[in-house]
């Protein structure tokens, strides 16, 4: 019995041990290929089943994002003015919003091919940018750049830039506005409202 448990433990944790070794560009590539593969096969997702797309993003994509860092960067100097409780709520709400947005974006990219550019990094680097391009027929390719940081567990994404527009920077401008107008609680309220609004729209 004990040996069985040990074997089980090894099986369970082996993937995590491995994850540490995966290079950041290989990680981005394998995750996006896997996700696109699932989307291409799944009729429900293609016909616009938001719940299912969100589930897919939650299980396959989210583990590779560092949401605390993303939220902190999007908050800028205001992050340190927020209490730990506020920081937690902000991170949770921002996460919900991003998952939904990402799911929408994902379903529109299903027919495009993605090219991955060679990673330009030194072996010891702990902060890299993985560059990829989405090719669309008849149009200039759209670049998608993932800023990634090496953490204890594995490489984690902390910013995504589409066509040079960084998610974190764009939200930082809005967040700064919101905080100036209504304080940190005002921002939390706006995020809450936005998420609730999207949820009701989805149920209709």
């Amino acid at each position, binding site marked *: 019995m004990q040996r069985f448990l040990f074997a089980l433990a090894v099986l369970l944790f082996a993937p995590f041990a491995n994850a540490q070794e995966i290079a950041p560009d290989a990680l981005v590539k394998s995750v996006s290929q896997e996700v696109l593969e699932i989307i291409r096969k799944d009729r429900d997702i293609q016909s616009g089943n938001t719940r299912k797309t969100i589930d897919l993003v939650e299980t396959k994509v989210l583990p590779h994002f560092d949401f*605390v*860092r993303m939220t*902190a*960067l999007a908050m*800028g*100097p205001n*992050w*340190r003015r927020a209490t730990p409780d506020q920081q937690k709520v902000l991170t949770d709400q921002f996460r919900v*919003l991003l998952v*939904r*947005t990402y799911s*929408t*974006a994902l379903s*529109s990219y299903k027919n495009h091919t993605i090219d991955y550019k060679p990673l330009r990094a030194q072996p010891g*680097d702990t*902060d890299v*940018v993985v560059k990829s391009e989405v090719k669309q*027929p*008849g*149009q*200039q*390719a759209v*670049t998608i750049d993932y*800023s990634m940081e090496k953490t204890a567990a594995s490489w984690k994404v902390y*910013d995504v*830039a589409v*066509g*040079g*527009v*960084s998610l*974190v*920077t*764009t939200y*930082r*401008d*809005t967040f*700064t*506005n*919101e905080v*100036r*107008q*209504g*304080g940190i609680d005002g921002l939390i309220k*706006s*995020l809450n409202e*936005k998420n609730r609004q*999207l949820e009701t729209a989805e149920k209709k």
Partner: protein
Amino acid sequence: MIRCLAALAAAALLASGCATTGGAPDPRDPWEGGNRAIFEFNDGLDRALIRPTAEAYRFVTPQIVRTGVTNFFGNLQDIWIGTNQLLQGKIELWVNDWARVLFNTTFGLGGVLDIASEMRLEKHDEDFGQTLAVWGAPFGPYVVLPVFGPSSVRDTAGFAVDFYMYPTFWILRNARPEHWVSWRNSLAGLAFVNSRANALAVTDVLEQAALDRYAYVRSAFFQRRLNQIYDGNPPPAPRSAAPGIPTKAAAQLLELLDAVDGGRADAGGPASRETFEPRVPMNYDAVLAAANRPAQLVAKAGEADRQEP
């Protein structure tokens, strides 16, 4: 104007106490009131007319037709794109873009097929606003154009030239017979609807993502333009992508600047991105004086880093 600026500075200093004044001023957007009004107008027009037309167009045409239409107009644009490469001194890209026109117009059946891309002659994205930027013109204030949307003073000037040089108009501008005019108008309409249809996916995401769509679009506009001007390699953004600087220490330093400068010297903030120059806070001396206590600062930053989860 100066008094107004002074009032804004005072408001920024009193940041927390001044919550009633509504939107915080973005230095890139001094005409925010008017811009927001035009933004609302554009939004209404889009919802009522342009978007439904684009959706209907997307519904009735197969993908292959839309790709053909996109290629056709893209080919016409490539002439002007190539010219802009030349004006910016990028000879290789100019040759690339005009070679695209050559191959696509002939083997690509008048531009309907994008043969050149398959020959690895990549498509580029240039316009006269970018050329002006390369020549040294700054963005100038943010402007929302009726119907055409986000722009800046510089890019509006660029857009006027683009519009004049756009081949659809250029070739047909002097057309005499009346029916040529209606043909030109139909072409322009098709180009407009087709490009709106191409943007549907992006606007769907925008609709979901933004808390304040006006501010979101404005921020995206400046980043996107900078990216275009530098052909995809803009100078790294000061805060989020500064490798080697511990995040917390950087945050601490920023907070310091923030305190000294009343919140207006926000590194990575609008002003610095607008001018592509190293940011110099208004009261540089005070900041230097503050920064000349490195031991204290480093100790504080170290403490912060230890607290990091």
